[in-house]
């Protein structure tokens, strides 16, 4: 796919999304689709890490939380401008990723998975225990919605549009990146690290760069989340969410840009569909419990029968091989 085709496709999706923002009246549907976009932004970052650095992070929820809390605290507690706070949140996420990645990325294997798992859980406990700043378990309230001048992103339709715009823009940037000098270096590292190094590519630095990029993107999603809900508490940012993000990436297909979106959509929609469908088959009591069981079993079945992820259904390999302009 050439750059022009890619941006045309993104524009088409954007038009469709805009139509949905005006046409869909159900706030329930709009909010579910907003969460698809927020999750997809975070999953996109993680899919770059998994696809390029060949490493899995089991602590991405921490970067989401850092983004949400940084932006939330700076606006609600310190009265910052919301866009400045959001920018700061991105920087904080990227910086945190650098901090944890710097000592780790010199070796490959399971180390990043372990260290990020530890980091993610520690961040969670800090959120719970550092009540003076984070509000502790009861959370942080009074986060203002994002606003440009007098236009406030305070309805589901507006945030939906904003989240999808950000997602599609990032997809476009990521697509550009993949098909560029930096992207080739990253793909080379993925193909053969030793050969990439022999071509003068500092693999450690590039992997670290991808991880920081993912940290920043995930923090951005977290910041958008905080300004959307205007209230945050630690419970959504636990280890479970880190796992869910990995699941999204793997479901969609590792190292495929649209795979992250597909995976996020699949997880959000599967959960919602189960919630809607199960009370019909199971007795009303205990439907939520069955939902968890079915989700777990579906996940297992999916990986057993389609280990390449959703994108592998199209039989198309990513990255785009014929990228000549």
């Amino acid at each position, binding site marked *: 796919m050439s750059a022009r085709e890619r941006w045309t496709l993104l524009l088409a999706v954007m038009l469709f999304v805009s139509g949905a923002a005006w046409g869909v009246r159900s706030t329930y549907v709009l909010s579910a689709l907003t969460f698809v976009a927020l999750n997809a932004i975070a999953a996109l970052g993680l899919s770059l890490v998994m696809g390029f650095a060949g490493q899995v992070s089991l602590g991405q929820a921490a970067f989401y939380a850092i983004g949400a809390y940084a932006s939330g605290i700076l606006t609600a507690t310190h009265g910052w401008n919301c866009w400045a706070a959001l920018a700061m949140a991105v920087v904080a996420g990227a910086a945190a990723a650098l901090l944890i990645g710097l*000592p*780790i990325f010199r070796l490959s294997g399971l*180390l990043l998975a372990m260290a990020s798992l530890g980091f993610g859980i520690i961040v969670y*406990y800090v959120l719970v*225990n550092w009540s003076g700043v984070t509000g502790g378990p009861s959370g942080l309230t009074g986060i203002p919605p994002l606003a440009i001048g007098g236009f406030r992103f305070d309805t589901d339709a507006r945030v939906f549009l904003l989240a999808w715009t950000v997602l599609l823009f990032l997809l476009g940037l990521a697509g550009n990146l993949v098909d560029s000098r930096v992207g080739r270096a990253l793909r080379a590292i993925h193909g053969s*690290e030793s050969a990439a190094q022999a071509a003068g590519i500092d693999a450690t630095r590039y992997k670290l760069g991808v991880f920081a990029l993912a940290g920043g993107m995930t923090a951005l999603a977290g910041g958008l989340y905080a300004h959307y809900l205007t209230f945050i508490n630690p419970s959504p940012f636990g280890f479970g969410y880190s*796992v869910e993000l990995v699941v999204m990436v793997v479901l969609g297909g590792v190292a495929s840009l649209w795979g992250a979106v597909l995976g996020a959509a699949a997880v959000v929609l599967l959960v919602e569909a189960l919630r809607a469908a199960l009370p019909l088959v199971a007795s009303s009591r205990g439907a939520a*419990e069955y939902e968890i069981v079915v989700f777990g079993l579906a996940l297992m079945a999916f990986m057993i029968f389609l280990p390449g992820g959703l994108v592998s259904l199209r039989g198309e390999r990513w990255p785009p091989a014929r990228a000549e302009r």
Partner: protein
Amino acid sequence: MTFAEQLAQYLATGLVVGGAYALIGLGFVIVYGVTRVINFAQGEFVMLGALGMATLLGRGVGVVPAFVVTVAGVALLAALLEWVAIHPLRGAPPLAVLIVTIGASIAIRGGALVVWGTDPLALPPFTAGPPLALLGAVVVRQALWVLAVAVLVFAGLWFFFTRTYAGTAVRACALNARGARLMGIRVERTHRFAWALSGALGATAGAVIAPITYATYDMGLMLGLKGFVAAVLGGLVSPPGAIAGGFLLGVLESFSAGLLSSGYKDAVAFLILIVICIVQVAGWLPWRVAGEGEA
């Protein structure tokens, strides 16, 4: 309570919890060593052991039969899981296998929620009686059961792995699967056995610790992660390492909860995890934690 008594108390508490971590960590080591899979559902075996024991004891079944039935049942479930979900993924990317074990963990936890609900189940200690005073520490009787069972299991495993043909075969598979196959060892059966064994270890940990901690459907996640840290602390492929790692983790956790802050008690294990990773990168660790780069 004097300061020395306090320290003794922390040590005792830490060793008891550490015994459970060591059992859980051993489960990780055995499955990882033989099949190179990190089994995310390991903690759920612990939960099933605890809830199974609680249910059977509640129905008036004796401690010994309840223990045997629970452990055997979970071992069977673990073997079944290997057969249905892990075995078909031979040669798949490690990440896909990891996700399958995550799916299994979610499904098992959900199943427990359906069967047992959210309320914690209390269960009586194996032997009744008031707590004992040992070297200045007050120790509930069940704590002695935890340690006794753990030590018995360690001794049994040591005997099995070093003194029996079957145990040697398992070790051979862990060292070199192809070589083991050439020697006529049935690697597939060994894999299933490793899963069953780790299921049994997890269930044992859950069954003995539950009278102290209560049993709930969601206890598996944290216990599983702590057991994983114990295994990593010991090098991830070394059973004695996992045992030492388990006790070390339990004691460190107990001391930091007592002396520093109880709010961060659960974070200690994960701080240790990060420190180990960094220390290994710096090359100060005399053993390898896990994974290797391109040759």
